[in-house]
């Protein structure tokens, strides 16, 4: 599913996001990068309508997201937070099942079909054997995968992942990116990820969006847009991109 942003504005007391025109293609992985405070997460939350957005500023397959009801919107787009705060310690299977909320009336219980969809989602991320464990027993990397499984159970075509690899070791970081690619290729998901690692972003994304001060500075195909001059402009520091065995590394 394609996303089109048109004159999107959102303001916190000391920060405002302004995006005039931006589009995301279907079944592609787009990395949103930029310095701290650039507005990456705010953009992602606006795209998921987690934050209130004005009507006529965000369209998914031509449908105005702000005009949709909560459950309709959740079937189109899903925001995956960076971490889950485990105030209440749910079993992993119960946690993933919550991804089915948009298919279940507030006064009803999940059906067998919902349980099956949740179990399939958990199997897809490779954690079927953790179904009966509690969330608090999982490592940080495993919790990220469980969050992704819950998003998969939601069966929305667009996934908005907020820094899915922060604080993960290189092995788990790579596993998450492999999963992201698998979701785009096998499940045809349109995936947007906010990232701090520029090397990871360029390596694992099809497209990139560079943000600074609440605005989009540049966007385009990752291989084309990723240049020294742009990085220096966005991060306000000297940076140099070098090619190493087909991969791009950033020196600073």
């Amino acid at each position, binding site marked *: 599913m394609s996303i089109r942003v048109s004159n999107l504005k959102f303001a916190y007391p000391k920060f405002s996001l302004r995006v005039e025109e931006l589009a995301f293609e279907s079944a592609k992985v787009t990395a949103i990068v930029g310095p701290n405070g650039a507005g990456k997460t705010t953009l992602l939350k606006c795209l998921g309508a987690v934050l209130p957005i004005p009507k006529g500023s965000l369209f998914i397959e031509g449908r105005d997201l702000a005009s949709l009801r909560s459950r309709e919107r959740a079937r189109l787009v899903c*925001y995956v937070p960076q971490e889950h705060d*485990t*105030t*209440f*310690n*749910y079993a992993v299977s*119960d946690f993933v099942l919550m991804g089915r909320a948009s298919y*279940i009336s*507030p006064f009803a219980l999940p059906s067998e079909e919902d349980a099956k969809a949740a179990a399939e989602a958990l199997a897809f991320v490779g954690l079927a054997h953790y179904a009966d464990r509690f969330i608090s027993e999982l490592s940080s990397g495993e919790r990220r995968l469980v969050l992704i499984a819950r998003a998969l159970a939601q069966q929305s075509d667009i996934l908005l992942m907020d820094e899915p690899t922060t604080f993960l070791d290189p092995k788990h970081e790579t596993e998450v990116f492999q999963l992201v690619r698998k979701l785009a290729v096998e499940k045809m998901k349109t995936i947007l990820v906010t990232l701090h690692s520029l090397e990871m972003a360029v390596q694992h994304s099809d497209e990139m969006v560079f943000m600074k001060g609440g605005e989009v500075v540049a966007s385009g195909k990752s291989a084309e847009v990723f240049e020294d001059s742009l990085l220096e402009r966005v991060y306000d520091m000297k940076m140099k991109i070098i090619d190493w065995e087909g991969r791009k590394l950033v020196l600073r």
Partner: protein
Amino acid sequence: MSGQKNSRARGLAIFFLVLPLILFLVSLTVGSYGISPHGLFKTILSVVSPASHPDVPSAHRDILLRIRLPRILLAMAVGAALSVSGASLQALFKNPLVNEYILGISSGAAFGAALSLVFLGRAFPPQIAGFVFAVVAVGAVLLISGKAESHFITLLLTGIIVTAFFSALLSLVEFFASPYVLQALFFWLMGSLSLASWKDLYISLPLIAIGVVVLFLLRWRLNVLSMSDEEARSLGVNVLREKILVIAATTLITAAATAIVGIIGWLGFIVPHLVRMMFGADNRRVVPVSAAVGASLMMIADDIIRGVSSFEIPIGIFTSLVGIPVFLVLLKKSRKVWL
């Protein structure tokens, strides 16, 4: 949970769900005037068919029907309702320390009911004014504290201030009350089942039932609402609408209960903790089992009051005196993550 663990949990859940029925029958035999199980059985039969058991004293029937039955039904209903309400509020606010006191619901309900009793008399149902002022109190707490989810301390402080305000208003009502009414008010505020009558039950039970049924139906949804508001919204929940629904149901329960039994402290706070420790956090189990455990504990507490002591200790004092040490022990033993 493994299969064995799961079936053990299911067995335990069934035990707790059946327990209130057993305690209900036991409670009918307990009191200053002892009725043996055999006598109870005969009395029940004589109520159903008076001609078949002419030897049963009419005093037994009167004690059973006019005094014990309404009192025990009230104990069950209030215990179940406050526990379900507590479990729901804790899930909704994503915080196991939240209860109807912190949110000002109890103090608003107590003031409203007292105001009604003093100025409108017992002929006018105190539940109405109790509900109105409970809504005012919880509305004030939530509006003033703002985004309580991320600022629990703000919520706590606002709750304390609003509770203090309604306590002051309650003192003002007491000031204007006649000595006779004041004595009744004083006893009622400490939490007492001794004033239970069928008339009170006819008004409060349907209101309590509405609140409990709504929360029971919403029990799985409470799991989703216990996620952060942003997560719940992303999962497809209309967070504001469903929050209002849960708060309205819990306020209705508290107002209906407070209007006839006063303030029963700590029960709705502790029971969900106990249940989560045994069954995990899934509200599909926590809500119904909390209702059963709450009803059981309330009946046990009332049985002790009626059966052991020669004078009647207000049950609100009893639940607080027993509940607070239990809570402290649980708090100490509990893991950092709340089950």
